[in-house]
């Protein structure tokens, strides 16, 4: 299933080209992964304690910086300078989000405590 029809190329061309560059991608698997993760997200978030909605916002904010993995590849690989610079800015911005997002979430959560047993 992987090789989807490319715009201006014939299927054979794009397939042989694919071997040189990147392997063909199984988009349907990716769609499955997306749909399943969305189901998980809806289920899990619906159960988050109302007490914790503010920390939840900063936690998901940190997680949304997952584009860091793409930024690392973009910055670190052998690209032309402009692209490396774009990658580095993205990497910087995502790292900032990760660091501040997790730290502030933890700072807030540390404050929640139960009634001490007397």
């Amino acid at each position, binding site marked *: 299933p992987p090789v*989807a029809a*490319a*715009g201006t190329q014939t299927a054979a061309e794009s397939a042989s080209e694919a071997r040189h*560059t*990147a392997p063909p*991608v199984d*988009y349907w698997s*990716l769609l499955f992964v*997306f749909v399943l*993760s*969305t189901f*998980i*997200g809806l289920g*899990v*978030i619906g*159960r*988050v*304690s109302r007490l*914790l*909605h*503010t*920390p939840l*916002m900063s*936690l*998901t904010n*940190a*997680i*949304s*910086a*997952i*584009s*860091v*993995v*793409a*930024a*690392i590849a973009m910055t*670190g*690989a*052998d*690209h*032309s300078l402009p*692209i490396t610079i774009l*990658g*580095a*800015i*993205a990497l*910087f*911005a*995502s*790292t*900032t989000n990760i*660091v*501040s997002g997790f*730290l*502030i979430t933890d700072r*807030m959560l540390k*404050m*929640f405590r139960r*009634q*001490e047993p007397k």
Partner: protein
Amino acid sequence: MNDFRVYLVETLRATELAYLVATAGFILALYWMNSPATARRGVLAGVLAMALGMVGAALDPHVTRWVWVLGAIGLGFFVGVPLSWVPLTAVPQRTALSHAFGGLAVGLLGTAKFYDWLFAPAHAKPLQMTAFVMGALVAEVLLGFLTFTGSLMAAGKLQEIKWIPQRPVTYPFQNFVNIGLLGVAVLCGLALVVWQDQVAYLFPVIVVLSLAFGVLLIIPIGGADMPTVISLLNSYAGLSAVALGFVLNNKLLITAGALDGSSGLILSIIMCRAMNRSFFNVLFGAFGQVQGKAAAGETKTVKSETAEGAAQIMEQASLVVIVPGYGMAVAQAQHRVKELYDLLTKRGVDVRFAIHPVAGRMPGHMNVLLAESEIPYDKLVEMDDINHDLPQADVCLVIGANDVVNPAARHERASPIFGMPIIDADKARTCFAIKRGMNPGFAGIENELYYGDRTYMLFGDAKAVVGEIVKSLSGGGSGH
């Protein structure tokens, strides 16, 4: 070293494995947020998952420019750590700013990917630009840059920066203009999908249009609706990560992005529901624009009370329900409230806090502030539960809350908050309301609670007034 990485990645598939484990980590991180007892474990899971993802990405044998990589990461730490020290009142702004950073990152990555592909020689394209991939790339860039400027605007409105108007800005045919702009961007995207590099010049057009669209989308929305908007922008940020994942065939981006997307969506739905408004109304309703129609005709009178008087009555109560609102956040009164709580509890008074889901300016706002002042979280009671107890409460003390205790929501069909569930402060035997004057709250409407028979106003800044109550309680009752 590099051979070893090749072995790890190509034979052992270490990257894929790391991504799989990281996915599980993110799911657990969110799952553990279901209770304050496990929530910090959730953060740990999230940190580990993120670290694992980063290591997995760095294993890629193509990654060799360590100076750039480590430099950018180091700079990120350098800026990120201080950003986490902001005061808790500034958390909404920080979150918005952070979304802007995130949107920028995704947008830039998409741009870089596009030009990397465009300028590569035909026989060595770095990715196979099928219609699907191009579509995902366009969606990614659109969502990313839109989130960037939109979040910047939102952060500005929340921070109340001077040159960003707080009130909704509207002009004729606004929605037409916005939808038209978006339509043009989408058409450009379709053209790119069909004609690929032949119309590469359309790419910068899309970038500019999305940047503009982000701004235009936010200006008609009032400052106070920003929390809902931020949540929605969070959702967009997640979706743009998903789109990037489709472009790069990276499943970790897809799973983490989808978790994020659904989280933002659910939080904004919860907020809309608690305000009894629709998405559409929040995004296009220009809420908070009309103002002052509240000050109508007849003059009603309010009774006011001194802090000492209130202290005496509370001392004798057996159940006191405290309703905190945005005013408590503004006045930073939470530590004084904790002292009040301690004093009353020591005297055997049962003190509970009534938490409205949209009290304050972000979901869970009051919980965080009260937790900061070390009030145990089992004393924070959700609206539906506390409404059962309120008719038995001797005193209801409203601290800087307004809309969330406005009985108009129950019966006044014309009111903008009609139908929003509220805390029944008017059902307690006595109600004290602390605020500085008779200004309306976020919804800009009058509150008949203040004119009720059993309501007494305690005028002044929340921090000062609660401080006075604390003083007279600890002074008068020290021999107790």
